């Protein structure tokens, strides 16, 4: 998994690409820290270029949501497509995290 963070005033957009799996715990930990530390009140992960996510990846997204909620930051996922969108549907992730088109 790779990502790039773009902070603009109230919203930080994280463009994520590649595969988000159990192999990305360390990188995801770093990303969550970045999202906690930047000044934007709202953090959005853009998943349009993410090819694959597994249950560990979903677990890490839930950890991001929890940690950001602890510091009163909003969190949303945007643009899931293909396999990622299908897994979110299977996991009914939309009940726990805001999903945007």
């Amino acid at each position, binding site marked *: 998994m790779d990502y790039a963070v773009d902070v603009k005033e109230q919203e930080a957009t994280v463009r994520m690409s590649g*595969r988000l*799996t*159990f192999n990305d715990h360390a990188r995801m930990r770093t990303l*969550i820290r970045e999202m906690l530390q930047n000044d934007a009140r709202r953090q959005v992960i853009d998943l349009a270029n993410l090819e694959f996510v597994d249950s560990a990846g979903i677990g890490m997204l839930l*950890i991001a949501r*929890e940690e950001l909620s602890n510091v009163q930051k909003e969190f949303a996922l945007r643009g899931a497509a*293909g396999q990622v969108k299908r897994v979110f549907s299977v996991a*009914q992730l939309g009940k726990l995290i805001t999903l945007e088109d």
Partner: protein
Amino acid sequence: MTATALALYGHGMARDQLRRLADSAGLALWPPDAIDRDLAPAADQGLAPDPSLSPEPSLSIAPAVIAALATPPGAVPDCLWRPPFHAWIEVAGLAVTELAGLVDRVGRYTLFASLTTATAKELALANHLVSALSARQTLRPDTRDDIELAVHEAISNALIHGNLQISSPEGLSINSLERFTSDVARRLTDPSFADRRIEAACTLAPGAVVIEVADQGLGYTPVRSPSGPPPARRPPPGTDHRQTIVPLASGRGLDLIGALADSFEFQDGGRRIVMRFRL
């Protein structure tokens, strides 16, 4: 498939080692004259076999090639996951008898892989296996995605919980993620964990594929009865999933496997999961 139809190709391996392996396992080399025609240097660089080299007549009919992978194998090129390759064996630390045992198992399956934990963790093995399967059997895109995720979850469980004997992160916090990451890194530096093997094998049957994933850990006792019905059935592509399945960070992904496979069961004390998918 008989043993005589099998041949061996070396990826990232020295020519002497490859020749010894082929001799010890009673296998022909593929391409058969790779060594004499100086293909070994290409293999050392991880390049594909040269298709212009004509294999022996007996192999040209239906060659089934085992890719012997060095440790670490580095990037395995995509062409090594396409026919005629149908088995991938990392040869690190294998005794001759162990290699012979694996070669014997290769013949029982459509696809077969045996890798160390350290290597399996770095390779997107499920993705490669499903690509290899797609080269032999047309799969609908949704079906392909479902099989890949279920196999990936089974491999993740085998790696993390089976061979490395590590529990999932506890609780939804960055600290639990940190502990988990350092536990994995520490176990991977210990050869008694990192060298344990992951086996993944596919069998194509009429209208279905059976995929097995096995580890060498302490075993696993499933919460649900293995003989009982799976927790969920895969709905036809394009329909909504009816059950709420939210695999939390502490989950093993088994709910996902239950939702994606048509059935699954554990064998060998939980060290082997056997999943069946309708095609």
